[in-house]
């Protein structure tokens, strides 16, 4: 008699062909070269996303999305519920780390030209995922209903209002009214726990499917060395070699998250008062700082446009170009590296870092 585990595997195999899945795992490989380390950031982002889903579900057990209760319910989680401080701090820290690893993943893909044919759509779905993740950050920031979040949301949504023609409509859509009120909180809660998770899951499925279908991209510089015979193409089995390395990283990330949550528990601040003045030093989360600083530096009129709108227009256009890069940078290929786009990437990265740093000057 075979062991129960083997019999269960056999039972599943008879019905779904589990063996073909094992076969697939056996053949999945990861290119091994000096840039392989960058491949880990996608998996790390995915892992942190799973942490977000799990801790988010736990927070839902106590959170109440109304202006009278939201702050108190988060306070209750932080002070009364056993390990509540840990769950909320991990959720906040992991959110920030996830945006960081997603950004690293995006820039590494950009600089290693992994978006080139045939992976254009992998890039597009990845960029859409990044926008969704920023949406998570923006909506989740308001949920504790504290002073900082209240004014950050007021400013953030007001930016949408400065868009010509649709601005008024956009503002009402985001705020659920003319002002940031309980209606906004209800909306942001809905976006954060229903709309965005749905979008993210769908987009993530598409992204992962494309990655599976097309495999990992080998950077043009490495490809060139291989064709010139200066390097031999090496591969690493995905299972278990790459996955185990992935898991070591995830395990370490859990340790870092636990340590951050214990040493720097996420602050709650003071409850939002819609009729109090904005306190000094108000600013958005770090990943929006470069836009925040740009808008601060812009004069009130740029050519014939309102300064505010000029800034938003600039960022929207830059974002569009960034998403469309695989369709613009068509020269990039086997041995021709389009230096223009590498330069553009360095400029964008430099701009984001510089502008963010200027906030603290």
């Amino acid at each position, binding site marked *: 008699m075979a062991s129960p585990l083997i019999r269960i595997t056999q039972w599943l195999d008879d019905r779904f062909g589990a063996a073909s899945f094992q076969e697939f795992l056996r053949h999945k490989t990861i290119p091994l070269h000096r840039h392989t380390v960058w491949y880990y950031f996608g998996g790390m982002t995915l892992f942190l996303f799973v942490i977000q889903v799990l801790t988010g579900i*736990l927070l839902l057990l106590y959170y109440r999305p109304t202006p009278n209760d939201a702050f108190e319910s988060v306070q209750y989680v932080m002070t009364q519920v*056993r390990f509540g401080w*840990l*769950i909320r701090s991990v959720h906040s820290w992991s959110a920030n780390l996830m945006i960081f690893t997603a950004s690293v993943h995006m820039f590494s893909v950009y600089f290693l030209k992994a978006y080139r044919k045939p992976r254009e759509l992998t890039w597009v779905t990845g960029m859409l995922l990044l926008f969704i993740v920023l949406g998570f950050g923006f909506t989740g920031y308001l949920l504790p209903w504290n002073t900082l979040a209240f004014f950050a949301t007021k400013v953030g949504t007001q930016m949408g209002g400065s868009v010509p023609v649709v601005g008024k409509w956009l503002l009402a859509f985001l705020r659920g009214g003319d002002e940031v009120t309980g209606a906004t909180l209800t909306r942001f809660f809905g976006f954060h726990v229903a709309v965005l998770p749905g979008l993210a899951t769908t987009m993530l499925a598409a992204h992962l499917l494309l990655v599976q279908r097309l495999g990992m991209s080998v950077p043009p510089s490495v490809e060139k060395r291989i064709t010139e015979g200066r390097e031999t193409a090496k591969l690493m089995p995905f299972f278990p070699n790459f996955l185990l390395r992935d898991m070591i990283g995830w*395990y370490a990330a859990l340790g870092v998250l636990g340590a951050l949550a214990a040493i720097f528990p996420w602050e709650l601040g003071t409850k939002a008062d819609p009729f109090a003045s904005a306190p000094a030093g108000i600013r958005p989360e770090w990943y929006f700082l470069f836009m925040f600083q740009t808008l601060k530096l812009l004069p009130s009129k740029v050519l014939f446009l309102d300064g505010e709108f000029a800034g938003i227009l600039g960022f929207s256009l830059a974002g569009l170009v960034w998403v469309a890069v695989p369709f613009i940078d068509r020269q990039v290929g086997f041995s021709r590296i389009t230096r223009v786009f590498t330069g553009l990437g360095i400029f964008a990265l430099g701009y984001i870092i510089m502008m963010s740093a200027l906030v603290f000057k």
Partner: protein
Amino acid sequence: MNIPEDARAASPPVARRWVNLLLGSGVLASLASFLYPALRYIIPPSVPESTSRSVVAAKINELKRNAAKIFQFGSKPAILIRTADDQYKALSAVCTHLSCTVQYREDLHQVWCACHNGLYDLEGRNISGPPPRPLEVFDVHVQGEDVIAARKT
């Protein structure tokens, strides 16, 4: 390494067995340390039970004869009945069957639970239907304008 495949599978070296044991128990301990906070988090902190032993159930002129009202005793509902022969009765209003809130039936002069047709008499005794136990009975006394219900000592 020229060890034949079958020989390796048959007897893993002692060192490997130790590594497996240490790795396995490390992973298990980690999983437990992630699960424990989550499980403790799910159970809400206990809310302290109301310690007051008595409560004002009604004002003296509030109820007519053969009528009743629900009042709050601590965190749970209770029922105050003014009987047809002008006596006050106070009972827990939580049905002992499945915790519905009971009501006074003026036509039957009995306490009735709408959920599963349970019946209690005015002393709280379960007399018909599914309730397994009598309702808790409170002492009632009138103090000035107030009708006061108190837990029996």
